[in-house]
C-alpha cells in the first residue's frame, strides 16, 4: 500500500503551494473598462510592463494563509520550552483589554486631553515597573529587549560624556555566557568589548572581573539570573566594584521572570535594566507579536533618560516631548512615538490580574517547574552545572557521548514527539547546550509528559536507535532540512518552472 496520495495532502495535513505557483497572472479581481479620452500626466513614467504578481480570489487567499497557519506550533498548542525566551501563556483577558477602542483606536498624535486614560495606563505601568525593580525611573519607548539594552547603554554613555570621560571610558566587560545582543549593543555604542571568564560553577568570576576593572571601564553587562539559569550570587559585590571603579552596571533583564516579586534589581546595585514585557508579563514573544522593552534607570542615570516620557501633574497626564526642564540632559529620542501601546495594556492587565502576590508566585512557580524538569531529566542527561537552577535547566551533550547522536538530532526527534525543541547550542559555555525553560504555565501533568518523552528518547539514544534520530523529524510535513546546503547555496528567488510559456501569455 502506498503512503502517497493523489493530491499530496495527507488528511488534515494539507500541502500549500507558493503564492507564485498557485496564483493567476492574467486575471485580477475586478474588470474595469480601459479609460478613454484621458491624457496621461505621468510624462512617460507610467508602467510599461506587468509586474507579474499573482492574483487570487478571496477564498483562495484565505485558504492559503489558514493552511500555512496550521503548520505553526504555538504556546496555545503545547509546551514551548525555549530557554531564555519565557514562552508563557498569554491570558485572553490581555487581548480583550488591548482591543478596547479607547486603547486600540487612538492615534499617537491625538491631543493629550483626549487620551488621558491611555496616558494614565502608561503612567500606572511605569509605577509598577519601578516598584517591581526598586528603581526610580523608567523609559517606556524601547521596542524590545535589544532596543532596551541600547537605551540603557546610551544612557550610560551620556552619563560618562557628562563627566567628561567620553574619550577615556571605552571598555565594556561582558561575560562569555552573555546573550549575543550584549556585546553587539556595546559595540553599537562605540565601546570595545572585553570578555569575562566564568567560574567552574557557571557564574561570573568575581576576582577575574575585579582584575579587569580600571579607569577605562565604562560598564559591565551582566544577565541575572544568567543564561545558564543560575543566580549570580556575587552580583552585589560586582556592582560595588564597578561603581568604585567609576563605571556603571547594566543588567540584562531577559530572565527577570525568575525573580519578579522576589528580588529587586535596584537593591542589587543595577544602574539600568531592560524588561521584556513580552516575556515576563506574558504578551506574545517577538516573532509571534511585537516586543516591548521598557528600561529602568537608577538615580545616577535618570537625568539622561530618553524622551518622550509620561508625567503626572496634579490630576493631568502630560507627554514630555522636548529636552527641557527635568529632561534637559536627555540623550534624545529613540522612536517616533511613545512605545508599544498594545503591549503596555497587555502587561498591565497581566499585572493587575495577578496582583503583587500573584507575580511573586509566578517567579516561584517558574523556578519550581524548572527544577522539577532538571531533577527528572538528570536521571538520563548531564546537567551543565551541578546544583539548583533558577527558571531554566541547562544540560550538556556529555550524556550523548559515543552514541553518534548530537544535540541537533535529539531536538529533531522531539519534533516527532510533538514538542517544540528547547534552545540548542546556547549558551556557548556548555558543549552541545540544551536549555529548557518550562515557565510557570505548565501543569505537573504537562511537565511529566514532557519529561517522560525526553527520558524515553534519551534511553533510545543510549540503546543505539540511531536511525530514529538521524532521520528525524519523520512525521513533520517536511523532513530533515540540509542546513549546510541551505546556508552555502541558498535559493532566494522563485523562478517559474517554464519561463517561456509565462512570457508568451
Amino acid at each position, binding site marked *: 500500500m502506498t503512503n502517497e496520495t493523489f493530491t499530496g495532502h495527507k488528511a488534515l495535513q494539507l500541502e500549500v503551494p507558493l503564492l507564485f505557483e498557485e496564483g493567476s497572472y492574467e486575471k485580477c479581481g475586478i474588470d474595469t473598462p480601459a479609460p478613454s479620452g484621458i491624457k496621461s500626466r505621468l510624462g512617460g513614467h507610467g508602467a510599461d510592463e506587468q509586474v507579474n504578481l499573482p492574483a487570487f480570489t478571496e477564498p483562495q487567499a484565505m485558504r492559503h494563509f489558514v493552511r500555512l497557519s496550521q503548520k505553526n506550533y504555538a504556546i496555545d498548542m503545547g509546551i514551548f520550552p525555549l530557554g531564555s525566551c519565557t514562552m508563557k501563556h498569554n491570558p485572553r483577558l490581555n487581548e480583550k483589554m488591548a482591543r478596547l477602542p479607547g486603547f486600540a483606536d487612538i492615534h499617537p498624535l491625538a491631543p493629550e486631553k483626549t487620551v488621558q486614560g491611555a496616558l494614565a495606563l502608561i503612567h500606572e505601568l511605569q509605577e509598577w515597573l519601578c516598584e517591581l525593580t526598586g528603581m526610580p525611573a523608567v523609559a517606556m519607548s524601547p521596542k524590545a529587549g535589544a532596543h532596551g539594552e541600547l537605551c540603557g547603554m546610551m544612557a550610560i554613555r551620556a552619563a560618562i560624556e557628562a563627566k567628561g570621560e567620553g574619550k577615556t571610558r571605552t571598555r565594556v566587560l561582558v561575560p562569555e555566557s552573555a546573550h549575543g545582543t550584549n556585546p553587539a549593543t556595546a559595540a553599537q555604542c562605540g565601546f570595545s568589548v572585553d570578555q569575562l571568564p566564568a567560574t567552574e560553577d557557571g557564574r561570573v568570576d568575581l576576582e577575574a572581573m575585579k582584575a579587569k576593572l580600571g579607569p577605562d571601564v565604562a560598564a559591565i553587562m551582566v544577565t541575572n539570573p544568567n543564561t545558564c539559569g543560575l543566580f549570580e550570587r556575587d552580583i552585589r559585590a560586582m556592582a560595588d566594584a564597578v561603581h568604585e571603579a567609576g563605571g556603571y552596571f547594566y543588567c540584562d533583564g531577559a530572565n527577570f521572570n525568575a525573580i519578579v516579586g522576589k528580588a529587586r534589581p535596584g537593591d542589587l546595585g543595577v544602574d539600568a535594566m531592560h524588561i521584556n514585557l513580552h516575556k515576563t508579563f506574558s504578551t506574545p514573544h517577538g516573532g509571534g507579536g511585537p516586543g516591548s522593552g521598557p528600561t529602568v534607570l537608577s538615580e545616577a542615570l535618570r537625568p539622561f533618560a530618553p524622551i518622550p516620557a509620561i508625567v503626572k501633574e496634579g490630576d493631568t497626564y502630560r507627554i514630555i516631548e522636548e529636552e527641557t526642564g527635568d529632561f534637559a540632559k536627555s540623550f534624545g529620542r529613540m522612536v517616533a512615538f511613545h512605545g508599544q501601546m498594545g503591549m503596555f495594556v497587555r502587561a498591565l492587565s497581566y499585572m493587575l490580574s495577578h496582583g503583587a502576590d500573584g507575580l511573586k508566585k509566578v517567579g516561584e512557580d517558574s523556578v519550581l517547574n524548572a527544577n522539577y524538569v532538571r531533577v527528572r531529566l538528570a536521571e538520563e542527561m548531564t546537567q551543565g552545572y551541578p546544583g539548583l537552577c533558577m527558571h531554566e535547566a541547562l544540560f550538556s551533550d556529555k550524556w550523548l557521548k559515543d552514541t553518534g547522536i548530537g544535540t541537533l538530532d535529539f531536538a529533531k526527534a522531539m519534533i516527532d514527539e510533538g514538542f517544540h525543541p528547547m534552545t540548542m547550542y546556547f549558551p556557548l559555555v556548555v558543549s552541545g547546550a540544551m536549555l529548557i525553560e518550562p515557565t510557570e504555565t505548565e501543569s505537573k501533568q504537562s511537565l511529566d509528559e514532557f519529561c517522560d518523552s525526553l527520558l524515553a528518547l534519551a534511553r533510545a539514544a543510549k540503546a543505539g536507535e540511531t536511525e530514529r534520530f538521524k532521520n528525524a523529524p519523520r512525521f513533520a510535513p517536511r523532513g530533515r532540512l540540509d542546513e*549546510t546546503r541551505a546556508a552555502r547555496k541558498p535559493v532566494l528567488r522563485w523562478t517559474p518552472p517554464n519561463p517561456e510559456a509565462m512570457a508568451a501569455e
Partner: protein
Amino acid sequence: MTTKFTKDHEWIRVEGDTATVGITKHAAEQLGDVVFVELPDVGKSFSQGDDMAVVESVKAASDVYAPVSGEVIEVNQSIVDAPEGVNDAPEGDGWFVKLKLSDPSQLDGLMDEAAYKEHVANA
C-alpha cells in the same frame, strides 16, 4: 619549516619570515559544516590575539585570532567562495591567511604538535 598551535585552535606554519595560518582539524570538527568565511584585507596588520577572521558553521560563528603579530600578505579566496574547503582540508588547502611576521619570537610562546594534542585531549 615548523608548525605551531594556539590554545584557540589555530595552526601556524612558518617558512622564513612568513607564515601560513589556519584552524586545526579539531576546530573544524567541533564547528561542523563551515558555511561562511570572512578574511581580512591584504596589507592589514594585526597584533597577536587580535580578531583576524570570522568562520561560521551551521552551529556557531567564531573569531579566528592572529596567533602572532604580522601583516597579511595573502588570503585564501577559495575558502570564501567555497567554505567547505575548510572542512575538507583544514590543515592544508583550507588555510586562511599568510602573514609576514613582525615578531618571530612570539612563536616560542605557542605549542608544538605534541603539546597541542595534549591540550585537545584535556579540553
